């Protein structure tokens, strides 16, 4: 059995002197002046997970003692509410092998016959293997705060939890105390969120759609009554549209069915969200990044997807108009950034070896800069990079304010930095080595001095390092380097809900590389339905 590690902080966001940091389903606020913990918010599911983790641990002990295998937990699982949808966890399959071999084969047969209740055979198989994966599979979905942002006035904090697709809004009192105002469940899992200049929350999801929702939901808002008084499902096909004999037969039986069941409309209306939600635009691809940008007094929405597109749309209320594209990437896009003080420039990076520098409104590529070369300075065996985060900062130097671009890559223990020159190039590459894999960065401007960087890191199981590190920056021949490292007093209370095996942590926090297309992803030449990519398949399963 693998050893449990603490789920590291994966999101950081600063509000002046207050640092928001999220680990698993917990949101902590720290004072940046003394590093003290101010407040904690927990996702309601946090308790459930903690309970389940404890229960599983107990059961394991019992099971070990009695040698009963995994049957006992199965039984009481049925009493619980139906298990939440499992998140994908790649490496669990491997760990499952050792477990399954422990089980006597008779056990398997037995379970199959007993749980064959309502589900179809195929589905049952799937769920069975799911349960079999591990004792811990009975832990409900781990809550994970995937995004943190705030309004420009710092009075509201917005958090996204991935496992339940919820957007949470908190009121911030300026002292680090958060009050939960609302939570709204989005139709699909959000993949990026920003707050527009008009305090609209703009949210991109993994199904490719971008929605806007007001910061504070209007309690009086009602779903527009759709004038669909048709109670029975209209049969969309007719004798003229189906041509094969089998399809005709299917149609006949459909028509019979339609006559039989007069009312079944209750479960239909549940699809519509119970709050104001406006569809702005959409890609037919997983969205990975979202920005709101302004140029020459006009506002734009910039979206990037897994299929190499960067799209420039007008801002609300004309978000349906596409102004242009920045095309040229040949692999997925991981993140976008518009550097401070240079709103004409967009920098994008993802599965490719380079960062791209764009004149985004014209859609022209200005230059590129290699990330791989820098990564190989850390580890010469690296052959590909997956840029997971892009940031920018302004460094006050004697020669004026310099704009730097920072990049982090999944699984590479470093922050890479470049100086953005006036002719739109990324020069003076620098490497800041880290004790762990960076998960998120936040830049904290310091009055009259160089800014600080807060890095949320995964220290890994081997090194019990801090998950949050605060760096003071230094400049050396226009390359950025680190001067001084401090940290915050991380939550010393050991709670079981932020503990997980390394595999689970990987499954939760490392999924950028996963966006890369697998070669030969399904030739449908012989008429087979090409398998959807796993990402999309899982998205479909959610709907």
């Amino acid at each position, binding site marked *: 059995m693998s050893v449990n590690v603490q789920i590291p902080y994966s999101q950081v966001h600063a509000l002046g002197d207050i640092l928001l940091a999220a680990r698993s389903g917990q949101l902590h606020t720290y004072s940046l002046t003394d590093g003290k913990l101010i407040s904690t918010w927990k996702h309601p599911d946090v308790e459930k997970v903690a309970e389940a983790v404890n229960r599983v641990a107990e059961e394991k002990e019992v099971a070990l003692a009695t040698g009963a295998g995994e049957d006992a937990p199965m039984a009481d699982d049925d009493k619980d509410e139906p298990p939440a949808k499992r998140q994908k966890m790649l490496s669990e399959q491997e760990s499952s092998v050792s477990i399954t071999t422990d089980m006597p084969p008779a056990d398997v047969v037995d379970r199959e016959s007993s749980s064959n209740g309502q589900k179809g055979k195929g589905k049952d198989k799937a769920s069975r293997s799911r349960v079999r994966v591990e004792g811990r599979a009975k832990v409900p979905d781990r809550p994970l705060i995937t995004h943190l942002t705030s309004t420009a006035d710092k009075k509201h904090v917005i958090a996204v939890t991935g496992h339940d697709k919820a957007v949470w809004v908190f009121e911030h009192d300026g002292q680090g105390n958060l009050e939960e105002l609302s939570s709204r469940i989005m139709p699909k899992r959000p993949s990026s969120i920003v707050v527009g200049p008009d305090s609209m929350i703009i949210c991109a999801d993994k199904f490719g759609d971008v929605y806007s929702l007001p910061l504070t939901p209007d309690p009086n808002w009602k779903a527009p009554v759709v004038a669909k008084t048709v109670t029975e499902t209209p049969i969309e096909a007719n004798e*003229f549209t189906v041509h094969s004999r089998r399809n005709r037969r299917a149609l006949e039986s459909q028509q019979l069915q339609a006559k039989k069941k007069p009312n079944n409309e209750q479960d239909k209306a549940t699809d519509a969200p119970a709050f104001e939600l406006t569809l702005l635009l959409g890609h*037919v*691809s997983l969205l990975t990044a979202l920005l709101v940008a302004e140029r020459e007094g006009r506002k734009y929405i910039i979206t990037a997807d897994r299929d190499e597109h960067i799209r420039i749309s007008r801002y609300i209320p*004309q978000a349906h*108009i596409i102004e242009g594209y920045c095309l040229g990437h040949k692999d997925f896009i991981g993140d976008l950034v518009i550097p401070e003080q240079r709103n004409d420039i967009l920098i994008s990076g993802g599965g490719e070896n380079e960062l791209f520098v764009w004149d985004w409104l014209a859609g022209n590529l200005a230059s590129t800069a290699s990330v791989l070369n820098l990564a190989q300075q850390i580890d010469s065996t690296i052959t590909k990079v997956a840029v997971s985060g892009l940031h920018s900062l302004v460094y006050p130097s004697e020669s004026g304010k310099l704009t730097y671009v920072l990049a982090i890559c999944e699984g590479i223990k470093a922050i890479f930095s470049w100086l953005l020159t006036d002719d739109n190039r990324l020069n003076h590459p620098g490497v800041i080595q880290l004790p762990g894999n960076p998960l998120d960065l936040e830049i904290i401007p310091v009055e009259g001095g160089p800014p600080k960087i807060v890095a949320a890191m995964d220290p890994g199981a081997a090194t019990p390092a801090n998950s949050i590190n605060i760096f003071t920056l230094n400049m050396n021949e226009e390359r950025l380097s680190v001067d001084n490292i401090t940290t915050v007093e991380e939550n010393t209370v050991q709670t079981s809900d932020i503990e997980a095996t390394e595999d689970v942590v990987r499954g939760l926090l490392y999924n950028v590389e996963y966006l890369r297309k697998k070669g030969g992803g399904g030739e449908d030449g012989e008429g087979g339905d090409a398998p959807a990519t796993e990402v999309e398949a899982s998205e479909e399963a959610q709907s």
Partner: protein
Amino acid sequence: MVTEGKKKAHRAQYQKSKAQDGLAQLPRKRFYRQRAHANPFSDHTLTYPASPDAMDWSTYFPDYVQDSASDDVSPKRLTKDVEVVDIGCGFGGLLMALSPLLPDKLMLGLEIRSQVTAYVQEKIWALRTQNPGGPYQNAACLRANTMKFLPNFFRKGQLSKIFICFPDPHFKARKHKARIISTTLNSEYAYALRPGGIVYTITDVKSLHEWMVEHLDAHPSFERLSKEEEEADECTKVMMTETEEGKKVTRNQGEKFVALFRRLEDPPW
């Protein structure tokens, strides 16, 4: 599947014998059949240009390649741009009929199924060879997933006509995002179409027709053409009678629903 191997063998044999003939024969459809549905969300193994400028059209429209003094311009430019697009062209009936009708416009069929694409490409090649100096030089077909990659092929405002003929109806509500007409995809068609350009839609499924009308009508960049304008458009008739699916529906005495939409100018802001 049991028949799979047989089908493949037949296909291989056909390909072999075809190669021996040396004559430009029209391909036979039976060797290119493919299941009518493709998952538009899948990655497939598509080749597509990174951007419209990177697209090499010279192999698709060899008669229209620019005679530039320097041969090292890569990719080679055409004397004119593709202007008419048939999304989901199927076996290409519309393309073959439109080609002589719009002789000065380059038209392209886009089809996601590889076998079907191959059929249309071979048919065009055969027609070109059989009619030297004649029509069909202005028509071509390539395999693409337009729902994902339309902006990779066409610049803003490059197109004047987009045909969407007998698309996959995707009856299930949860599959509606896979429909070729949707609020969000309409924005992409508006991007590729020039103001005044026209989207032609035709289907034999009434509810899909209503869906397409509803969604294109609701999109601020499009307005529906009146019945008179619809009938006056010469392409409407071709679309009704010449598409393979249209012929099939006629054979079955089915109904056909047509709707045309004009791309409006973008509002100022």
